[in-house]
């Protein structure tokens, strides 16, 4: 069970780490100062949550592998194929509509997943999730407001927002998959049942898109909802480039200490 739990924790941690890194790319480049601050604050929350998941993952790894890696080792010294984040969060920032669409589609799943994980049979997961859930409630509130502002905005913002939703839609199916790693954990009450989150996610997204005067995509082909996606280590070409930038400093000076 421990190797499965370790994999599961990496999935949660990597979602947060990769998205935090993406949001960090907006530092100093946000469309307005308040949004520069908002995006990076959301990224900071996610980075903090990633650290909590990584710390626990390292402890779990020690139970079956003799030694558990540190947060830094897990973040900076794993290869792209060993990352377990959803395909959605590694997609590039694009314009601000692309970033907001990616954020909202993820936040809506994230808040539901953390809500479910707050009742996990694993006490540590429940504690981390309960804490993270409070922060992610703010995230989804903000990102949904921006989807509406941009969707029900000018012709330009509306068009960009629709394009963004249409382009990212095919990655959303992966959030509701349950594979062989997760199934026993779900049955043990440890992991969230992603399949059960699909209906509430769709209901919420449908409502927000309607308020945003955006059309719900009809595309049903879901990248990553098939055998291999980001959760299994099969990533898009974007992740390795992002990791190269994120990991270059510690890899160049592996003995450096802050």
């Amino acid at each position, binding site marked *: 069970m421990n190797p499965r739990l370790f994999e599961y924790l990496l999935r949660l941690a990597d979602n947060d780490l990769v998205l935090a890194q993406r949001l960090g790319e907006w530092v100093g480049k946000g469309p307005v100062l*308040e*949004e520069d*601050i*908002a995006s990076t*604050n*959301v990224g*900071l*929350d*996610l*980075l*903090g*949550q990633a*650290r*909590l998941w990584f710390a626990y993952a390292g402890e779990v790894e020690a139970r079956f592998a003799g030694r558990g890696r540190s947060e830094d080792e897990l973040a900076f010294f794993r290869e792209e194929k060993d990352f377990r984040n959803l395909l959605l969060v590694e997609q590039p920032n694009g314009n601000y509509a692309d970033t907001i669409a990616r954020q909202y589609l993820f936040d*809506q799943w994230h*808040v*539901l997943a953390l*809500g479910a994980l707050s009742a996990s049979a694993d*006490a*540590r997961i*429940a*504690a*981390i999730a*309960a*804490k*993270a859930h*409070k*922060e992610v*409630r*703010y995230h*989804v*509130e*903000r990102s*949904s*407001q921006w989807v*509406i502002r941009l969707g029900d905005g000018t012709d330009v913002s509306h068009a960009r927002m629709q394009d963004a939703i249409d382009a990212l839609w095919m990655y959303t199916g992966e959030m509701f998959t349950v594979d062989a790693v997760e199934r026993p954990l779900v049955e043990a009450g440890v992991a969230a049942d992603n399949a059960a989150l699909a209906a*509430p996610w769709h209901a*919420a997204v449908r*409502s*927000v898109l309607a*308020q945003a005067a955006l059309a719900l995509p009809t595309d049903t082909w879901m990248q990553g909802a098939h055998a291999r996606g980001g959760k299994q280590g099969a990533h898009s070409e974007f992740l390795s480039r992002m990791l190269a930038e994120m990991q270059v400093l510690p890899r160049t000076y592996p003995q450096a200490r802050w």
Partner: protein
Amino acid sequence: MVIGAASSPAASRAGAAAVWHALGAVMDPEIPVVSIVELGIVRSVACVRDACTITLTPTYSGCPATRVIAQDARDAAAAVAPGRVDVVTALSPAWSTAWIAPEARARLAAFGIAPPGRSDASTVAVVTLRARPIRCPQCGSARTEELSRFGATPCKAQYRCIDCREPFDYFKPH
């Protein structure tokens, strides 16, 4: 105060009391008018013989002050504790602004930060374009508006007073 081998329960209680007192003088690094005790960050102090264990709870997951606070707490306790000091983190129950002491709220306002309202216990918040009446810490007016849900620190939002036109920070209910 007795410094040395603290082997009796009374001595342990005295040790814990000294540590609590010292922690009460450790101010939040970003909001230097409230202590980490008043913010509810210090959950417990337990002294057994020569070792004291301080349990802290982090506020926001990514709060950069967390490490500084832990170090400051350790330093303050080490100056008065009879022996070893350990600082541990408890994630559960999750920190809430409801734990902020009432006296601290008045001092936050005097410092220019509107204190947090009641924590919202609702579950999933999708879209809430609701108005929250927050009082301006400068002039007291309730006619204020939110500029940004986020501010200079993860715990604060940016507001502006419509009457006196001054911007101010709002400590978000959490």
